[in-house]
């Protein structure tokens, strides 16, 4: 297990290097520079600014300088937040995104699995259709529609919840963003759980369990749920990544200082170091999440561990 983990981690290094090279080339290939503006700068000032950020050096030189920093954990200064370094900005915003993402995932999994189990056990009944219908609306309505609608009713009309991150100091400011982020995930988890549980419930070992006289609850709890969770688990890796990276819209709407908003702002402003820093950070995160899911797989399903 340890050797496997180490091998996977070492294997990630070339991947990450490739990500850095590609991302570096891509951000520098994008037209326009980080300090371009409608109020264009006189040549002398432009030269001073380029020199301050080493943008006047040849690209290979800039790349080596950047890589040298990254190896030491220094992602350089941000161009669009001139008072902060990229590492600081990621360090500030990532916990916010994680907090939000974990909460959204908990809500999504708890609600999604419940709905999926209820639907599977009452297959093709009215209840099945109602709960799955509810779940489907979550998938069908995009976040940029759901979030403003939630704000309109719960924050503007009823004034129960704050409309934004900075609109309140308390925990209530998390509710609408978490709900907006969780809704589409609930539907996915519910569908996966339902399909998987139905399949498991029709397998031979469940029939054996029934033959031994076990009740439905016990069968689901002790025999069926665990194998039925495998597809849900394998979905968790991409889902966590999606919630962490895909929270851009939610962060924009609620004004949450998370990683997604940082990334968008960095890209639009050609903030090379910020974009690169976030990309490298995300890439590392996704590699680690995938590894984690593979390890968890082994823990849940002994057949995989033995292979």
């Amino acid at each position: 297990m340890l050797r496997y983990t180490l091998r996977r981690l070492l294997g990630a290094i070339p991947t990450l290097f490739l990500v850095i090279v590609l991302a570096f080339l891509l951000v520098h290939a994008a037209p326009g520079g980080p300090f371009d503006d409608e109020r264009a700068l006189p040549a002398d000032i432009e030269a001073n600014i380029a020199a301050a950020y080493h943008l006047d050096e040849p690209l290979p030189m800039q790349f080596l300088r950047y890589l040298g920093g990254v190896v030491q954990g220094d992602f350089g200064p941000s161009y669009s937040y001139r008072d902060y370094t990229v590492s600081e900005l990621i360090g500030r915003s990532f916990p916010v995104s994680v907090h939000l993402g974990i909460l959204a995932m908990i809500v999504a999994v708890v609600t999604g699995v419940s709905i999926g189990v209820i639907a599977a056990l009452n297959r093709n009944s009215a209840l099945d259709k109602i709960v799955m219908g509810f779940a489907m609306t979550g998938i069908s309505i995009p976040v940029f529609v759901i979030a403003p609608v939630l704000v309109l009713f719960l924050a503007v009309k009823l004034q129960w919840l704050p409309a934004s991150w900075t609109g309140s100091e308390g925990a209530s400011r998390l509710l609408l963003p978490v709900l907006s982020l969780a809704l589409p995930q609930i539907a996915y988890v519910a569908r996966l759980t339902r399909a998987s549980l139905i399949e498991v419930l029709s397998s031979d070992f469940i029939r054996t369990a029934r033959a031994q006289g076990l009740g439905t609850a016990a069968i689901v709890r002790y025999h069926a749920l665990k194998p039925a969770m495998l597809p849900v688990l394998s979905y968790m890796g991409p889902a966590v990544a999606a919630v962490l990276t895909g929270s851009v819209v939610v962060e924009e709407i609620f004004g949450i200082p998370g990683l997604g908003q940082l990334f968008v702002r960095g890209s639009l402003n050609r903030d090379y170091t910020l974009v690169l820093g976030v990309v490298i950070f995300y890439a590392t995160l996704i590699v680690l999440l995938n590894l984690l899911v593979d390890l968890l797989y082994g823990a849940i399903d002994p057949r995989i561990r033995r292979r």
Partner: protein
Amino acid sequence: MKTTRLLPAMLVALVGAAAMLAGCGNEAGDRESPLNGLPVLNRALSTEPESLDPQKSRSVQAADVLRDIGEGLVTYDAAGNLVPGTAESWEIAADGLSYTFRIRPDARWSNGDPVTAADFVFGLRRLVDPATAAFYAAEIGNVVNAEAIVAGKADPAELGVAAADERTLVISLLRPTPYLLSLLTHPSTFPVHRGSVERHGAQFARAGNLLSNGAYALADWEPGAIIELHRNVHYWNDAATSIDIVRHHVVTQELAEFNRYRAGELHVTSSVPPENFEQIRADYADELYIAPTLGVYYYGFNMTRPPFADNPELRQALSMAIDRQVLVDAITGRGEEPAYSWVPPGIHNFEPVQLPYADLSQQERNAIARSLYRKAGYSAEKPLRFELRYNTSDTQQRIALAVQAMWRKVLGAEASTVNVEFQVLLDQMRNREVTEVFRSSWFGDYNDANTFLAIMQSDSAANMPGYANPEFDALLQSAGEQLDLDRRRLYLEEAERVLLADHAVIPLYFYVSKHLVKPEVEGWQDNILNYHYSQHLSFGAAAQDGRP
């Protein structure tokens, strides 16, 4: 249903989630606790300031915050009139080349240190020092040696700014600069506390490090979310400050901003969403403030390439064929004024020159436009084909499509619209290789026509069309040499006449500022600069706690 046994596990998970929610609340709640009950003003910023270092900042939003926390020698009152700031008085030499400022004896930094003439010298040298890499270093280009220092050819200590004593600052100029006092309201010319810069280096402009000399001091800055300011009790005019805490919220989406305003989370918005503007105008008539501002929206021609180089009549034809009234009524629709001049009306000491056809009806303009178009050699059989470039945005697109239709209908010209990302458009405008007609805008830095006219000089970096007319350059040069303000104005007006006659740009409309302001906020005054210092605002007696 026996699956209910799953419920305990799920409940545990939900309780865990709730605990996380609550945990977060506690940690954030600490920020406010010592200040509970004090009046708080909640304002919106449309983008995050890139820096709160006076010399390193660039954006309008950074300047908005900096005007709350810092103060120049000169400042503005609520109506936008120049008034003494940290300098209580000044004298201008007869030749206009030397300004002597007297600093207030009670001017203080937010830690109580006195603000001295040396602090201004330090700030201004820092502005032009190449090591600072300041965006606004060219602002004080008329100060002796400023340009040479920016170019790295002179030492910052050689800048023509000197502290005669603790309270006397002398600024020496190369040429009379009647708008110098306006420049000295700009945050890039604010003083900086030398000890604090030297101690904190690159982290100088952080909450806890930044010392400022304005009505407020930086208390907290959460990038991407909020900037919190607290009253600076050492400020010389602190007695006039009414609101203790100002929170600048970063709100990038206009609709989200409007919702926050409606939810009572903002007292002042930075804009108003274009959707349902009429409805907002009706529902919030008493809270909506729309005022002309120093900004022009224009289409520029690439003056260095065919078909528009050396073809003023063709350019004029395209300009005349656009019905600007339709654009402002049907598309922008938020009180914008159609533009028939380059310099916006209402600017200090200037009477904008109108395009000669401003008084004609659109039908008359169209007729002339058609004949100019034919004269330039184009017709229904041989239509003019070109590209109109704009940056990707709903409003830009609607304007581009409307103008495209007007050109087709009136002239038969075939413009194809190309939308690109903003940074790409900037790049293309500057290179002048693929652009033919492009959309751009310009916002004045100070209340003087020079801020608009100077960018059209042939050597200006912001001259996007690549316009170069020696006559125009000479007129601006002469204007810069005038001591007499009336004579200077005549030169500037003549320069604008030349610029308009060349049709290098098509001014389409003048921007307006748009704010929603809660009724309990008092002291709000519209002004052409769209500067609204928090220190001029207060809460009416009815809402002393500052809650909308």
